[in-house]
């Protein structure tokens, strides 16, 4: 055990912080710091800027054009981006990329990898269905073999950015034999395929991020299968593992905590009562303290040898990360105070140049609370994580 960062790690961290801070376009940074939603072109522009430095695909190995960073360096990169007001990286870059690199055929790699770094190809993830949320393996969107193609019928839901995507990777049912997990296939498809319809779902804060996707006799060539028919669950599990550091949400929480500190200064300036300021200060401290520990848990997870039963698992990261995101977004709403009674949704969504009556930040505080209610649901609910943690740990602890 050596608790000190190596001088190389420190040098990398300082370098990446300095560089990223210079690279983020001012208008994008302003929208982020105003608690506004970003537009598709913001993400695309930032991704192209990263691509020029060779940093567009931090989790990809060098042979596929990645920067060859260690997990620790990726954490520093992610943090630097969040703290500099950059858009979050589209998680699918680090999901479908490694899937293609690990399981894809040469033809699939050649066709699909080049469009990912610049977001020329935007991928969405077709997993959840109306009847299959936490129990994902029960999914029923069916792909029936018809010569050299599959015909897909069914429905996906909560599909993030389906309306911005031109590709989807999805899980479909190809067999009813055996356990539900054994009849699932991982499939790639184009969003403009006839028979595919995307319908928006507006979230609590009025934003349009997620969608329903309907499949009505959608024909997909069989060469779009990854790994093989009925092997989809293996791919899905691999993909979940690929987003291990992202689910910790360290950068996101740090950024929101930074916003809370700024807001505290503004409230102080505005003459808010000291009792109220002290209460906020205490909550900021509580979150900052937990966030420090959470960062160290992340480093412990990164450092752990695969399969080490004593190491904290990704479920700990998810659980604590969710708790922090929920608390810090709640704090922002509370700090927003009565100003949160007012809400200009168009301004938050970045439509037009209107400034809301009490400014962008206050306009976004209650909305941020509403937005982050998703954090205990995505990537496995808090309750599912607790089930996993119990199963992973109880036997080992009882034996001690």
């Amino acid at each position, binding site marked *: 055990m050596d608790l000190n960062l190596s001088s190389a790690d420190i040098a990398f961290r300082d370098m990446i912080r300095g560089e990223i801070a210079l690279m983020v376009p001012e208008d994008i940074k302003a929208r982020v710091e105003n608690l506004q939603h970003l537009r598709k072109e913001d993400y695309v522009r930032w991704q192209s800027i990263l691509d020029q430095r060779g940093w567009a695909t931090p989790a990809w190995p060098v042979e596929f054009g990645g920067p060859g960073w260690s997990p620790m360096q990726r954490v520093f990169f992610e943090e630097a981006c969040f703290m500099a007001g950059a858009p979050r990286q589209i998680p699918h870059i680090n999901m479908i990329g490694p899937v293609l690199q690990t399981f894809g055929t040469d033809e699939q790699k050649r066709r699909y990898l080049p469009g990912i770094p610049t977001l020329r190809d935007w991928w969405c993830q077709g997993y959840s269905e109306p009847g299959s949320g936490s129990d994902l393996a029960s999914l029923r969107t069916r792909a029936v073999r018809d010569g050299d193609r599959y015909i897909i019928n069914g429905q996906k839901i909560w599909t993030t950015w389906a309306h911005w995507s031109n590709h989807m990777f999805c899980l479909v049912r190809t067999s009813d034999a055996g356990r539900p997990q054994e009849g699932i296939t991982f499939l790639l498809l184009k969003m403009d395929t006839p028979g595919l319809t995307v319908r928006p779902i507006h979230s609590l804060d009025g934003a349009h991020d997620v969608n329903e996707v309907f499949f009505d006799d959608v024909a997909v060539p069989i060469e779009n299968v990854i790994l093989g028919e009925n092997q989809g669950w293996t791919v899905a599990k691999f993909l979940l593992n690929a987003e291990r550091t992202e689910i910790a949400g360290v950068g996101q929480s740090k950024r929101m905590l930074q916003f809370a500190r700024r807001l505290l200064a503004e409230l102080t300036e505005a003459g808010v009562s000291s009792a109220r300021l002290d209460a906020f200060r205490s909550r900021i*401290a509580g979150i900052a303290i937990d966030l420090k520990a959470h960062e160290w848990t992340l480093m412990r997870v990164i450092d752990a040898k695969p399969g080490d039963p004593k190491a904290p698992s990704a479920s700990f990261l998810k659980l604590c990360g969710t708790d922090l995101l929920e608390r810090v977004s709640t704090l922002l709403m509370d700090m927003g105070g009565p100003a949160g009674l007012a809400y200009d949704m168009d301004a938050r969504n970045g439509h037009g140049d209107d400034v809301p009556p009490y400014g962008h930040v206050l306009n976004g505080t209650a909305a941020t609370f509403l937005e982050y209610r998703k954090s205990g649901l995505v990537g496995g609910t808090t309750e599912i994580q*607790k089930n996993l943690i119990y199963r992973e740990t109880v036997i080992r602890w009882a034996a001690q």
Partner: protein
Amino acid sequence: MNFDLSDDQRALVDTVEKFARSADARRQVTSSAQAATEGAAARWEQMAELGLAALVIAEDNGGMGLGVAEAVLVSEILGQFLAQEPFVTAGVLASKLLEQSPSEELRAKYLPGVAEGRVRIALASDESVHEFDLASVTTHTEDRDGRTVISGRKELVIDGAMATHFAVTVQEANGLNVFLVAADDPNLMVTPVRGLDGGWMARLDLDGAGAEEPLFDAETGLSSLECAVDHATVAICGEALGLANRMIALTAGYLQTRQQFGKAIGTFQALQHRFAEMVTLAEQARSGTLMAAAALGNDDPERRKADVSAAKSLVCRHGRAVVEGAIQLHGGIGITDEYELSRYVRRMIEIEKTWGDELYHEARFVRMTEGR
């Protein structure tokens, strides 16, 4: 940075574990302070023979020259076995106090005894029993018959009943300082105070107790003291991790064996989730403790204090959550003093209240991080 134990660290852990198992070191509720402290003092000398009393003393000063990360490993095992030896006080805290002293004479006089476990120094700083505050000191030096002597009262001296010496904080005209006073000084009255965990603390009444040279220059007295207490605080956080380990293990075993409604109660999801929360919070407390151990090397005292306070407040908060969860999941047996869990619960609360509770450390964290 890496979190795997090195071969040396693994050997250290094995040594401590072997000792803790064989010595039957478990904290006992004893009716006599003398009986309790004599046993613990003898075992402390045995631990010193293994080098543990000198663990964090620099090699130049005859110690093992290890860091607080290693001290955390040691105290975690001691916590797991509920050991009563004054590793954190007479070991870590005393070493760090003495090593910071600019007086070569005092270092030469006391460090070898500390390293051998013969000299057991307890910190006598608290004067209020309502709030922890190292700086609020009225105990003072005065001139009596041409000699400098110390007068005042000190409360809740941790491991005070088994101490051979006290590091007494004293308010002097130009700042706070620390004097070493022998426990058998004729002008010092030591009254044992029974602890919640069955151990024994002490109240000191100093009425012209003999004072030799102070440990520090008065300008650096408080900061040196704070630094030493911060080291001890991180080490005692390690002990809390060990307590949490044992409470979680007891709870895991109970969940798997206790039957209700015809099946093991661990099959019920509400109980599974409570257990998962305990495990998760204990992991966070561990991360926080490691973070603080790394921070002790920081040259900036404000950053060090912020990180140590972050860790201690986490350990207080999460330690209590583990206590509450363990009791609740055990049901009636969880509130039975005779059951093993009780000793761990009591010790965890003692650690909470040692050198600042959650409120104290959260407030200190706010002070240190404001303006950053």
